């Protein structure tokens, strides 16, 4: 990338980062609210105890980090002031949430812990699978079946003295099971997820935490979100300042479209081995119920074997070649190839950004980094643009309610009663409300000014639509 491009990035970044400095030492008076929040947190930590203990440190331990915190430099953030207190802020106060303890999560925990962060919480609802071991380096064969968050936290805490990683694996909680007050306690949130829906939900949650006074965003309500993603040899890392920079929903078009085969191809004219596998999975399995009423489990080798055998039969019938066990598993589980190296690169970039934001040592990435090392080593850094529309109260991301919901549930109030117009996730309600889909607004009994509440898995917020009949 040429120097000219970098320069524009630096200039435009300075504009907004000035207001989002997290370090309480550097907070100006206009950010009183945030200071209070951080002080509260600091007190809470003191009560929790243990974190102020630096006794586990040894001579030279933080030398690598200190040089960036205690020395002035020509390229630091304009708000940066060298100080020995910055390290204490990292060690004792700054609280980070890591979402996902998988390929990126394991790397993130290590990177953060070795950069001076100690108060790290980690959420992951998954358990460890053998196929994780080629990259999720905090797990060993003996850990297979155990909760990822717990094993990862234990490993980090035992390897890195003084580190207090708190896992949330219990009841295999999803991010959706935590409320606003849970998320509000963190200074920065880092995501290492493989699901776009979960990312969008998290993004929506952080946007819902923003507070506006007279239409002006209160910077202290911003929790920066650092998001990483990988697939094979490709990855991306990005910094999102909710309400200020492009968010997940602003850039949905950057995600590759999911490949789905048309039903008619699968049912009547297969051409690829994948089509045969999908036939066995989608059509034969529910019909033949080979293992009774159980649904197909991609982790059950017997299930995969059954699909593989059926797919082979179908492929033979159409002279299609290339159905293998590995491909069958890949299609059924929608496996995304993954290697240690790409995860390492992306998690490293993300952790660097966490460090920059937490310490103001440098201006953070503005705001999107793409990485690909299939042919040479390629990175591309650019500023993803916000997409928004302005409503009377404030600006919203255009995607948040204009499109790309996954399975929206629509409810309204009719004659004083809550009425579900459509809901996909519960089978019985779906069947009952499906006829509503082809009705007109009038037939549904909706009138001008009526409010519709739309909820979706992609956001924690319910979006209210007000019907405005024009003709």
């Amino acid at each position, binding site marked *: 990338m040429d120097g000219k491009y970098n320069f524009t990035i630096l200039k435009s970044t300075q504009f907004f980062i000035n207001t989002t400095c997290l370090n309480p030492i550097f907070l100006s008076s206009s950010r009183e609210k945030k200071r209070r929040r951080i002080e509260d947190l600091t007190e809470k930590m003191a009560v929790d105890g243990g974190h102020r203990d630096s006794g586990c440190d040894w001579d030279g331990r933080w030398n690598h980090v200190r*040089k960036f915190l205690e020395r002035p430099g020509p*390229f630091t953030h304009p708000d940066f002031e060298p100080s020995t207190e910055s390290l204490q802020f990292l060690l004792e106060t700054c609280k980070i949430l890591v979402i996902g303890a998988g390929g990126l999560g394991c790397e993130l925990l290590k990177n953060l812990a070795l950069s001076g962060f100690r108060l790290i919480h980690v959420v992951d609802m998954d358990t460890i699978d053998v196929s994780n071991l080629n*990259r999720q380096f905090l797990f060993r064969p003996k850990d297979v079946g155990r909760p990822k968050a717990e094993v990862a936290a234990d490993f980090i805490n035992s390897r890195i003295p003084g580190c207090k990683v708190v896992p949330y694996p219990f009841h295999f909680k999803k991010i959706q099971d935590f409320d606003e007050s849970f998320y509000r306690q963190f200074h920065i949130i880092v995501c290492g997820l493989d699901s776009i829906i979960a990312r969008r939900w998290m993004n929506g949650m952080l946007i819902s935490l923003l507070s506006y006074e007279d239409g002006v965003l209160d910077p202290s309500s911003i929790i920066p979100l650092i998001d990483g993603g990988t697939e094979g040899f490709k990855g991306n890392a990005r910094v999102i300042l909710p309400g200020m920079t492009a968010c997940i929903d602003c850039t949905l078009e950057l995600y590759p479209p999911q490949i789905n085969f048309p039903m008619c191809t699968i049912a009547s004219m297969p*051409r690829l081995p994948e089509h045969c596998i999908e036939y066995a999975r989608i059509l034969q399995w529910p019909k033949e119920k080979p293992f009774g009423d159980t649904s197909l489990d991609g982790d059950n080798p017997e299930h995969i074997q059954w699909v593989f055998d059926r797919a082979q039969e179908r492929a033979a019938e159409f002279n299609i070649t290339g159905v293998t066990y590995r491909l069958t598993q890949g299609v059924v589980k929608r496996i995304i190839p993954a290697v240690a190296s790409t995860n390492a690169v992306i998690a490293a970039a993300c952790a660097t950004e966490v460090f920059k934001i937490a310490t103001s040592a440098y201006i953070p990435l503005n705001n999107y980094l793409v990485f*690909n090392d299939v042919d040479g080593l390629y990175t591309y*850094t650019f500023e993803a643009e916000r997409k928004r529309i302005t409503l009377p109260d404030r600006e919203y991301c255009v995607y948040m309610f204009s499109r790309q919901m996954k399975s929206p549930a629509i409810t309204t109030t009719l004659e004083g009663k809550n009425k579900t117009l459509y809901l996909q996730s519960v089978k019985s309600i779906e069947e009952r409300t499906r006829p509503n889909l082809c009705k007109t607004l009038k037939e549904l009994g909706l009138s001008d000014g009526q409010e519709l509440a739309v909820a979706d898995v992609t956001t924690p917020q319910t979006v209210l639509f007000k019907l405005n009949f024009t003709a």
Partner: protein
Amino acid sequence: MYKNNGENLCRKCESEFFTPASFWRICFSGSQDASTDVNHLKETMAATKASKEQKYDRQLRLWGDHGQETLENAHVCLINATATGTEILKNLVLPGIGAFTIVDGHTVSGEDVGNNFFLSNNSIGKNRAQAATELLQELNSDVSGNFVEESPDKLLDNDPEFFHRFTIVIGVQLPESTCLRLGSVLWSASVPFLVCKTYGLIGYMRLAVQEHTVIESHPDNALEDLRLDQPFGEFKNHIQSYDLDSMDKKDHSHTPWIIIVAKYLEKWLSEHNGQPPKNYKDKEAFRQLIREGILKNENGVPEDEENFEEAIKNVNTALNPTKVPSAVEDLFNSEQCKNITSQTPDFWVMLRAVKEFVHNEGNGSLPVRGTIPDMIADSQKFINLQNVYREKAMQDAVAVLKHVECLLQSVGKPPESISEKDIKLFCKNASFLRVVRCRSLTEEYSVDSVNKDEITSCMDSPDSEMVFYLMLRAVDRFYQQHSRYPGVYNYQVEEDISKLKLCVNGLLQEYSLNVNIKDDYIHEFCRYGAAEPHTVAAFLGGSAAQEAIKIISHQFVPFSNTFIYNAMSQTSATLQL
């Protein structure tokens, strides 16, 4: 190449497969009790074999079983187990390289443990190679971890051939003198050398490999090889077997777009003196011609024929002329391809055979690749078309195989010494063959052969990543003069700025480089004080490991030859030095 058979792991130290009678010690990590180790290993080996496919599943989908096999046969040498070094090895141990050997004469310091996940605070004072080997080995029981408690300089003094045994040598945080010495030893032994350095927020990598050939480069957006502009005999016959005008509606709308384009191209050529559509206007007219072929219902309204839509959409791809890519043409003309001897590597023998195929049976084209993209069609029509391409690809591969056999015989080698499977793979990838050649470190560093053009043209923009390369060179110079790095202690930062500036100017003068380096960069590098922040080390750890995997597996394309990562702006650049 040494291959770990598991049993070796339990024999302690002083191994047989390393040069004997040497004064340095090579040790295997692991427990002291050899018998428990053997039993434990036998149990786990059986289990690992069964679960290996599962364990490596996510990467096998990228480089295949054959790629994995090359990894498992590889022996990687790491010099210096700093944070950058252990992060690189971690990303090689996890995917299951056969063996690694760490060479490191340093003693673990408190600072080392601070940024390194594979050193613990109770290893302070111990040898760093040993301490890191223990914690890295623990990551993957398939991997054999070894260490040498010696500095690379001592090894170079006493037995430079020590380094010849490795698949690749990765040197981390090396002083310039060691790097150049080791570089020339490895260069003459044709051992790939990957130099890595994390310096503050800057990452640096340099690959020194004389010649690296890649058959499977796995390009992201490869053009299809459809031969619509010069259909081969069987394809022509296949096209003739279709008559779009006499088809029923169902068949018409399930005819593969390749056939549709071929049919209308025939028509076009007959109406345009055999000239295919060339410019935008022609192509638009050609698209219109196809569009007119869409069936109409009784009211004259065009039916919804998705296959025709696909054909129209793919006109550009379809009309792409079949030719040997210029990169492959260049390889045909290289010395290695021209002079085949009994020493010539298989790659070049196969390339020569493909070249002969192109000039003979191929009529100027590479062997047919034999794959077609998925498209709207019924099963029968699609499979038949696919088979036309597949069979032609097989025939072409057989023709290439004949050339290979002749070539091998002509240099006195058994004709079957290159397998049919390898030849087929080669033919399938003929358009994507790559050869990476790096300049040697000696060439880069010599005043006579330094790439001044690259440096000065990059430095036209003073904030180009090139400035970090020059700064790193200046820092090396500082180290040579002062036996320490600038700004290591706080009190040194200010005074070292002017000293480092002298080094910068000295460097520019020595190479007569008329470029300007801003003082800010000199200040910033003194500020770094040789810090190796973990996240920058980890970034390099990921990238360097993948480059090593590319070198080992001969899949995907390594960078050439210098890579700079700037963590301040999250940008990077690849430079030719």
